[in-house]
Each structure stands twice: as C-alpha cells, then as structure tokens.
C-alpha cells in the first residue's frame, strides 16, 4: 500500500496550487493514472479524503481517468497497446499481466518499448474563489 504517500504528494500540490489561485474551495481534482502503475484509485481517493479533512479540499470530487499503455517500436510504430491481442489473452486473470503480455508491436511483433501507461498526473483542479461567491450572490 503506497497510496498514502502518493495521496500526501497530491494533497500538498493541490493545496499549494489552489491557495496560490485564491481558492476558497476545491471542487474537483482530476488525475490521469496509467494502467500499469501499481496504484488503486479507490484507495488513493480514500487517503486523499482523509488528508483533506478540515481543508478547502475536504469536499473535492476525486476523478481518476485511466490511461491505457502505449508503445514505441524500433520499426517506427507508435501507439496504444493492441486491444485485439488483449482480448485474445483474456484467459489471463490479471489485467496488468494482460497488458504486459501485449507489449508486442502490432506491426512487426517484436517486444516494443513502453512509452505510456505508468504515469500518475494531477491534470487539473476546479476551484471556487471569493470573486465567484460574490458574483453568485448578485
């Protein structure tokens, strides 16, 4: 379980950015998570909520967008992992294993280099500021 330390990092970054923009409340936090990371979105969200208690991020919606792995091959192919191959391998139980097994270039069949799928990006936050509140109450 390393979701807690990651959630700490996310919380710190979100708070710093939100406060720098004069936020009174953080409404949404949107993450992009590669499917090949060993991170569990539900646990991450749980840890974030625990950390955010009593802060302006307390009620933030935690949105996690999963990113499929992508490849780059010596033959020049660049693109996502072959979804067709994944379905053929569906007897393999773990999703992670299925993706790793499909790390072959769909063009030439050689083992290709992973270029995406291991990232964890705080993409954006949506905030409310004093000004917004003043405008709303008019």
């Amino acid at each position, binding site marked *: 379980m390393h979701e807690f330390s990651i959630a700490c990092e996310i919380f710190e970054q979100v708070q710093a950015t939100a406060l720098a923009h004069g936020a009174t409340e953080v409404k949404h936090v949107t993450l992009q998570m590669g499917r090949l990371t060993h991170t569990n979105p539900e646990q991450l969200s749980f840890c974030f909520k625990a950390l955010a208690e009593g802060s302006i991020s307390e009620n933030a919606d935690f949105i996690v967008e999963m990113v499929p792995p992508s490849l780059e091959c010596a033959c020049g192919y660049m693109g996502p992992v072959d979804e067709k191959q994944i379905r053929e391998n569906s007897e393999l139980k773990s999703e*992670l294993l299925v993706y790793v097994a499909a790390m072959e270039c769909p063009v030439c069949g050689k083992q290709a280099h992973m270029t995406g799928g*291991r990232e964890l990006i705080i993409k954006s936050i949506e905030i409310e500021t004093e000004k917004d509140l003043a405008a709303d109450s008019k």
Partner: protein
Amino acid sequence: MHVINMEHDVFKANDKLAEKNITKLDKYQVFSVNVMGAIGSGKTTLIEEAIKHLKDKYKIAVIAGDVVAEMDASRFRKLGVPTIPVNTGKECHLDAKLVEKALDKIDLNNTDLLIIENVGNLICPVDFKLGEHLRIVIVSVTEGDDIILKHPMIFKTSELAVINKVDVAHAVDVNADKMRDDILSLNPDIPVILTSKHDLESLKAWISFIELGLRRTREAQRK
C-alpha cells in the same frame, strides 16, 4: 468556478530526484544497485554473500530499507561495511527522497559499490526509481511458481532477475526452469541467475554479475 491545469506527474517528480541521485553517484564514481524482492526471498543473504566476496576488493556501503526494525542493517554491519538503516514506517518501498537523505550519511569518496536493499515487496518498489545503476529482483522458489506472472511489472522493469533457494525447489514442488521461462516471457532480454546459498558456484555467478556491472559503470563514469 475555475479550472486550473496542473499537469503535475507524481512519479516523474520522484524520477527527477532519482536522476539527481545518479548524477551525484556518478560524480563520485559509485556503482549503485537496488535489490528488490519479497520478504523471505533471500535478499539479505545474497547481499551478505556479495559483501563477503567483494569487500576486500571494493569499498562497499549499504542502505538497508526496512519497515521498522534494524535487523538487516545489523547483519551488514557485522561484516564491517558502513550501513545506513532507512525505516520507512508504514511505507512499503524506498523512494528517491529517502535515498537522497541516506546518501548524505555515506562517505561517497570512500565508496565503490552502494547496495540498496529495498523493503520486502514485489509491487510498490516498481513505481519508484531510487538512483540506481542496476535494478535487481530476487524471488525464491518457496514463493511458488506462479509468483512471476502475478507480478509482471517488476520483472518487466528490472535489469537482473535472481531465482533463489533452487536447492529446495523439489521439496516445495516448484520447477525453477518454469520460473525462468516465465520471467523471459515477460522480459526476453533480462539475464536470469539461479542461486542457492549452499551452492558456491551459483553464488559466484551472482557476485560476478555485480562486479561486472561495477566495472562497466565505472568505465562509463570515467569518460
């Protein structure tokens, strides 16, 4: 409401710090290895063997990652090598920040080989680079022969795989060759070494691999 784009990659932040660690180690011509593996895979024993055989030839330092205790650190200290214990508390892996702090406590001018023993775990260390020249994963046959396919990413991202305790493979009804085939199916280019602490030849293979890495890295660092 305002949307603020952040584009902050949490793992890249760690990777950047790991790069900084590597740059520092290169400056001092230190070769670093990150030894990963489950609890009970034999990481500590294999590291001890490497220390015993290499300590007269090279100056060795160890960073011993542990959740709470200092048991492993004291085993390395007994061999007379400087050892920095890093207690991660509740965490399940070392990260670049913890290693950066530990590096401050090591006399890098007097170090040729830095061995980092990661926390016993096949999952969490995968996402965190430390600043290592060589990523090593150790599994033992006692973990069962499905252990490899259950943890594909660590075998995909390591640069050396060791299958340990092969002397008891028969007793636990595991085929070490199947384990090797599974590793190679995930990562066809990875060197795989089969070891047992009771088989000196196998230990020599493990030790020479480390020594070879050290010599090659040092050559590159001198350029």
